[in-house]
């Protein structure tokens, strides 16, 4: 599989982060990110990425590297194209009529827009969590089991579901009501259920599109803690409006903004991409500095 170390890590005997998350609210987020061990180079990268919606250029010339088992944050004001870039990474933009991608998006060196690449296979390896928790109108169990079922991995389904729920720090809260409808969960629980659903297919990369913007601070803090656990097994790319969140959880940060082009159309542009610490303490670009210091955006 893509991630040999994960099976062992997600075994029921060593639930990642569960004890800590359920014992109380872990508020001491912060410098957890720099402690992360090992990075085996880039899991994904974009080269000269341009994204069009019809004739409209939405994002231009993005070069990014997403290090393996690191958290990369994409930040910037509304309309800067950060979500567009994120949705290119697992070809979710294919679903938008008229969307077109130029340049390369590589996954371990393979262009995911290259000939012969199956977008379904891409999405099985590169999972996604959305802005608004979007559980299916099914039971908690069926939500998590959905991915394995559609991908044909139906063996040991109970174990897979349990591991995914433990991995998303939700198992202890839902283990007695797996058959209940997921809509009965709180917003934060629903979002962790969506994370469990995303990791149940054992992807390699996890894309998160503003995963906390619909949640209260306590639920947000739980998700942030969870990301610190998940990054041991997954490469995470997170889009966030919340600069503090980017500073707390990510290793690298890419700052985007919308620049008017020669016709006056606002085009999403990558301004600066560096280690998070550098971006927040010593940004190279004036626009980055203005944004993170609250002068605009």
């Amino acid at each position, binding site marked *: 599989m893509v991630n040999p170390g994960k099976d062992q890590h997600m075994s029921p005997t060593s639930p990642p982060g569960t004890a800590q998350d359920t014992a109380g609210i872990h508020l001491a987020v912060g410098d957890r990110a720099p402690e992360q061990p090992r990075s085996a180079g880039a899991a994904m990268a974009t080269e000269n990425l341009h994204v069009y919606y019809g004739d409209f250029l939405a994002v231009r010339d993005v070069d990014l590297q997403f290090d393996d088992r690191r958290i990369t944050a994409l930040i910037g004001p509304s309309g800067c194209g950060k979500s567009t870039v994120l949705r290119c990474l697992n070809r979710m933009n294919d679903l938008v009529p008229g969307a077109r991608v130029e340049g390369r998006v590589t996954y371990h060196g393979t262009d995911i827009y290259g000939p012969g690449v199956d977008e379904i296979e891409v999405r*099985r390896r590169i999972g996604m969590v959305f802005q608004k928790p*979007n559980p299916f109108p099914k039971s908690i169990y069926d939500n998590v089991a959905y991915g394995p079922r559609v991908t044909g991995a139906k063996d040991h389904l109970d174990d897979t579901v349990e591991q995914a729920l433990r991995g998303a720090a939700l198992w202890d809260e839902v283990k007695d009501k797996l058959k209940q409808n997921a809509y009965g969960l709180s917003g934060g629980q629903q979002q962790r259920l969506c994370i469990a659903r995303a990791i149940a297919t054992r992807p390699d990369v996890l894309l998160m599109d503003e995963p906390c913007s619909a949640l209260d601070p306590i639920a947000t803090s739980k998700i942030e803690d969870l990301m610190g656990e998940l990054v041991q097994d997954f490469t995470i790319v997170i889009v966030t409006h919340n600069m503090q969140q980017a500073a707390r959880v990510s290793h690298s940060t890419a700052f985007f903004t919308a620049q008017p082009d020669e016709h006056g159309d606002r085009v999403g542009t990558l301004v600066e991409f560096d280690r998070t610490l550098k971006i927040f303490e010593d940004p190279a670009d004036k626009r980055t500095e203005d944004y993170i210091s609250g002068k605009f955006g």
Partner: protein
Amino acid sequence: MTATDTARTTPARALTPDRRRRDVASTVFVSVLWACLLVAALFLFYVLITIVVSGVSRLDANLITQAPSTIRPATAGVQPAIVGTLLVVGVTALIALPLGIAAAIYLEEYADPRRWFNRAIELNVQNLAAVPSIIFGILVLAFVVRAPLNFGAVALSGSIALALLILPVVIIATRESLRAVPREIRDGSLAVGATRWQTVWRQLLPAAVPGIATGSILALSRAVGEAAPLILVGATTFITFTPDGLFSRYTVMPVQIFNFALQSREAFIPLTYAAILLLIVILLALNGTAIVLRNRFARRW
């Protein structure tokens, strides 16, 4: 406290102006609305009461067990028309529902709206829903009853005419139910690596079933009450036997009622009203089922 109250007396007075003129206007308006409602309701009740009063004497077992007869109208019934309606509308459902639901899935989930032929299909479907029903009768008469298919004036021809008639309604109802499923559900399904087909089959259709069922039942109840297209494709015959298959001669309830109404003898009058009452009961039962389905299973996202 007192000081504050005094200071605020003047603005507070603005909240209690002379309301009489406004009150008169709204009373008049509400009265007009009530009057309109009353006219519609009174007319409906008048019709219903007339039917019940005139038909109740023939609301007996003979009505549903006996065949129509020109010789003994006092004991005649509409049994062949009941069976004919069930047969024709049942086959209509078998034809129209799979076709309509499949067409709606294509238009809603697969068709690229920027392609001209998809837009043309869409426009046509919407226009077909507004085509007078007798046109479908003429169409089926020309192509199904006669050459090239040459089925003759049989139950299957009637089913085809009704299926064509309700197809646009089924398509539109299904598309609306599919569209009501939020995009987040599609995204969530596709993002875990489900194919489009898996997403349709496992997420969208189950979520849309209540809406599809409601729309389909309403469409079928329209088919039950339809007479015009069937008159053209063979339901006119005054038959006295139960249809025994798709290629049997047939009649249906509305056409049977029409036939009874043409009879000149006194004894046919209560029989006609009783048959109308039976048809209304069938339609109310169908519509009631649709309402129950919608209220019980409709999902609020």
